[in-house]
């Protein structure tokens, strides 16, 4: 049997292997100083972009810093909920307490340079705005300017957001996947990269943008073997009682017409939710996914 013939590759995952099969490296027998590590579980946190997690990550005591600290050390305040028990696994109020192996920088899924270059539009998180009516358009061959029909209360888009333009014509129209991005935006107009040059007025057109989410990935050590979810509910659920005290449940989702599973790490969610609440923010303004492996480490 080859050295990597499956018995040394983590197949358990959870929900009969439909969730992460991330390396139980310590099971490997091949001589390698680097295989002596522990099983990792990868996650991504996606936060509403208006909280500035990506834009302000380097500021002292930033939300990003607080979230990472909460994931690593717990929220340190006591948590929203009292400690609870689930199938014998005690979950501390507030969650957190995971041993971090990796943490990435937060990036906006629409406007960050890498997300602009890598056209993963169909699978990355998107947050499209409402369509805003446009009354006129002009362009210099490099940048197009669309004037809003009514003055907005605040600049509706951020620089770098992907835009979709409809019903202007003359080369102005584009869809989000076409890689047109906001270069400037005020309460009265938006500029974006375009080769259009016509001057158009009295339009009945519209523009909207993908604000994206501010996301960052992290990896924690997860030594716990999951309990198989036999008989635990229609969709099933699984406890991870390891370092993170992670608790994951499943739901049926449909991606491209196929059934898959999503996972929610409730314990770590508690930690992040507590950070938002402590900052007088909406504790629901985020999502947390356990990443799974296919052609990358992705949310499905």
């Amino acid at each position: 049997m080859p050295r990597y013939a499956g018995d040394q590759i983590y197949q358990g995952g959870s929900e009969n292997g439909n969730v992460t099969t991330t390396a139980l490296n310590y099971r490997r027998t091949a001589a390698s100083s680097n295989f002596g590590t522990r099983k990792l579980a990868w996650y991504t946190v996606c936060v509403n972009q208006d909280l500035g997690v990506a834009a302000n990550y380097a500021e002292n005591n930033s939300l990003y810093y607080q979230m990472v600290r909460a994931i690593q050390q717990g929220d340190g305040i006591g948590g929203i909920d009292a400690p609870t028990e689930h199938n014998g696994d005690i979950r501390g109020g507030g969650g957190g307490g995971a041993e971090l192996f990796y943490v990435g920088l937060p990036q906006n899924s629409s406007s960050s340079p890498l997300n602009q270059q890598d056209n993963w539009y169909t699978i990355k998180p998107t947050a499209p705005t409402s369509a805003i009516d446009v009354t006129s358009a002009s362009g210099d061959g490099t940048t197009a300017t669309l004037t809003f029909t009514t003055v907005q209360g605040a600049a509706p888009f951020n620089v770098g957001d992907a835009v979709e333009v409809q019903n202007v014509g003359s080369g102005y129209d584009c869809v989000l996947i076409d890689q047109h991005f906001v270069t400037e935006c005020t309460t009265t107009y938006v500029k974006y990269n375009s080769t259009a040059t016509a001057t158009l007025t009295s339009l009945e057109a519209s523009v909207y943008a993908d604000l994206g989410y501010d996301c960052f990935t992290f990896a924690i050590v997860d030594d716990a073997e999951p309990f198989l979810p036999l008989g635990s509910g229609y969709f099933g659920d699984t406890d991870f009682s390891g370092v993170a005290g992670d608790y994951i449940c499943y739901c049926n989702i449909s991606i491209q017409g196929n059934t898959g599973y999503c996972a929610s790490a409730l314990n770590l969610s508690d930690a992040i939710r507590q950070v938002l609440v402590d900052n007088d923010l909406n504790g629901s303004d985020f999502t947390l996914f356990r990443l799974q492996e296919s052609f990358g480490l992705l949310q499905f």
Partner: protein
Amino acid sequence: MPQYAGNLYDQSNASEVAVNTQKASPSSLFGTRNLKFFTFSIFYNLYTNQNDFGDGSISVTGGTADGKQVTYTFAPQASVPYAVGDTIFVYDMDHGQYNGEYTVVASTNSSVTVDWYATGNTVTGGNIVRVAYNDADSFYSYIVRAIQKVAEVYYLSAPTWKDAFYTETNDFGNFVFGISDELTAYDVDFSNDNSDGGHTYPTGFGAGEGAPGATPTDLASALQNAFDAIGGWGGNGDGWSIAVCDDLGWGFAPGRLAGESTGYSLVSPNNL
């Protein structure tokens, strides 16, 4: 400056995973090496160890589900198709609750039984395919060993059923691996790649650059040599590629092409 405010690891590109030795927080796990993550992709279904996902599949004709076990029945086969302990993948069932990856607990030449809690709907439709990437002579195992000949593997994922469902072809296989760039015996040659899309990648990981004690040989070339030794994969239409995984915030996805098979070009599975 916050503890994790970016100054502790390389921000110049998002492919540089964990310069953990620079972490200031005490942890036994932070003493690891700087890792490069890659996606390996090939026009071959590594998960089932078949050219196409459905090759060798058996159609389900019926079955039972009692809340603890599900038994799938099918037309009698010439021999028992699955052994106890085998992994099977069931898909396209009329009721999605019976889809999934399971371990065989009982088998005959016309049925297979697995532990699964689903019940309440008829067990109809669908297909069963045997999961074979963990077979002793699977192509996946050859590839992993080929990689290990040229790089010190730190992280390794298995092929999954998602490869067939989430890419547009059923004959596609992927897995992610991480190598330590300090200890990589062979370097990755980015010099001939024009598909970087404007990324700013650091120096020090190109051919002949900054790999102490390393032979400045291209990882892709070394892999091709290894594949040639086991049958010439890559030159006959079964193209493969390796791409550096970018940390995009919402996950890791293959970005810059780091090498591909000779004689056949493989487009990164960025076609969802």
